């Protein structure tokens, strides 16, 4: 029993890596533009299906799908940006409905192109077992956990050291002041959508490499990303990683100890608990309460 629990903790930890990438993308766009992109999960899913096509069509390892997925997802993300930018009034409400509509479009496009079947990788290289001490996992899980850690490190460096990253943070903390410092908010919004697209593309390939995907999975991913940002509180990369690992672990434990059908419920349970007990998130955030 203890072994099973430890194993679940380990799998949950590895799963947390890609969850964190998805949540960071959602949070980044929200920070820069005050828009929740409800189609974010569908962008991740799009990348997963690109990986499927590359694997089944060209016979390549899914990891080589990353460059193609990057192009496809970043272009889609930029398109979302331009469409959202066309909203003239009541941006808060209308952007939600708009991105919801984009999510519906993407889900059905995926359904039309790739059909409703559940897809997963057939690559044996990805599925090979890797044993670390008492823990088992697939090679893809470890690989993408490391990749997501590296990407988070990169994101942290970008946000805190590079000019554009700092511009994005400046715009999210005070738009008018940032303008006065000569930052073009429109441009930083575009940049944040591109970076969110990069994160989503990698996360999507990761999901395909160690899990299963189906067209309806997109909105589930958006909800998960949202739960993580509520757990973590928007604003800190380590916070998001911890929130993501927490969700991953909780899900893995539920699957091990109860049933895989209840996997989604546990995330919601965590979410409600945090909402009641610590309304500003585990790592503090402001501006969320009404």
């Amino acid at each position, binding site marked *: 029993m203890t072994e099973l629990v430890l194993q679940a903790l380990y799998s949950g930890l590895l799963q947390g890596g890609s969850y964190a990438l998805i949540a960071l993308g959602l949070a980044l766009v929200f920070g820069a533009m005050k828009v929740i992109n409800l189609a974010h999960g569908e962008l991740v899913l799009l990348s997963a299906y690109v990986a499927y096509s590359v694997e089944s069509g060209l016979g390549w390892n899914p990891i080589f799908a990353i460059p193609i997925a990057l192009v496809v997802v970043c272009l889609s993300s930029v398109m979302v940006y331009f469409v959202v930018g*066309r909203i003239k009034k009541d941006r808060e409400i209308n952007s939600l409905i708009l991105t919801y509509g984009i999510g519906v479009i993407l*889900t*059905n496009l995926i359904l039309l192109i790739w059909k409703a079947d559940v897809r997963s990788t057939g690559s044996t290289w990805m599925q090979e077992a890797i044993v670390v001490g008492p823990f088992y996992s697939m090679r893809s899980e470890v690989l993408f956990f490391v990749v997501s850690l590296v990407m988070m490190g990169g994101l942290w460096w970008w946000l805190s050291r590079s000019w554009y990253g700092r511009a994005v943070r400046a715009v999210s903390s005070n738009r008018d002041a940032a303008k006065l410092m000569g930052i073009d908010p429109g441009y930083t919004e575009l940049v944040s959508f591109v970076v969110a697209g990069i994160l989503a593309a990698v996360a999507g390939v990761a999901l395909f490499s160690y899990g299963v995907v189906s067209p309806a999975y997109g*909105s589930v991913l958006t909800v998960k990303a*949202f739960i993580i940002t509520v757990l973590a509180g928007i604003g800190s990369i380590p916070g998001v990683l911890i929130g993501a690992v927490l969700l991953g672990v909780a899900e893995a434990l539920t699957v091990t100890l109860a049933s895989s059908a209840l996997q989604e419920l546990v995330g919601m349970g965590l979410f409600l608990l945090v*909402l009641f007990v610590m309304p500003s998130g585990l790592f503090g955030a402001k*501006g969320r309460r009404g």
Partner: protein
Amino acid sequence: MKPNKTIIVMLLAVYIAVPLAFGRDNYVMSLVVASMVIGGIALSWALLGNLGGMVSFGHAAFFGVGAYASAILSMKFGVPVLVSILLGGVGAVVASLAMLPVLRLRGPYFALAILAYAHIFRILATQWTSVTGGSGGLSNIPRLPEIFGYDLSSKTGGYLVILTIVLVFAAIYQYIRCSNYGLALRAMHESEDATRVVGVNSTLLKGLMLLVSAFMCGVVGAFNAHYINFLEPDYAFSGLWVTIPIVAAIFGGYRTITGPIVGAVVVYLVDQLVFKSIIPSGHQLVLGVLLVAMIIFSPDGLLSLLRKLTRRAHVAA
């Protein structure tokens, strides 16, 4: 709203002319009933959006809970169908009570949280097999009864019931909008902080709107369960119950009362008769495109777009 001639003529038309014209054609009648079901959801969604200022992506939860509550009450406890439909609405209200903590969240957070809730109820309905029959679903749900010798379980009977439900809801909506609460809610739309300062409990009012909206949606779901006599989780909690009503409400203009209902009839019929025959699976794609286009070009509905266009033509002439 004065009970003037137009309204009486309209009522006569929808109550008498529609059944007379299409009553013989079961296919057309079932499409009309389905479009009214969508209209009822769209109305309850628009009430929450317009009066409460909240965008809900979770109305499938209310619809499904209402449907299940009513079906189970009438099947296992022998509650008369017309009563259990109302109790289905109450069931949806109880479900919405679980969402009240979410009201502490603002704008986008509320929308996402309520999206998440819809998933929960679907999982519950699938897993709680002893009560809901699990993914196999419930069949032989009692039909709508006979009243004064008239069989409501026929297509035309179902039409009259759902029409009455939707019209009563529209009247309730209108009543709320004209009441003092409506005034406060409209003020909240302008500035929530300012409204609070003058002593309006804005969270309470928003909560009440959520309950009213949930009740309406639950009743519509309950009606639908008894009308089609069958329920399964993926159907009752389907995302379609969210997407089509939103498109309908936006299309017809979600800040009006008639807009969502008319929008639902138009959007649903066009979707079923035109889009579905062109793209059998994934015809929701067109709905998504429609939604995006409406938000960009005319977020207040098609009517205001037409008005804008005619004005422009007028100026040009």
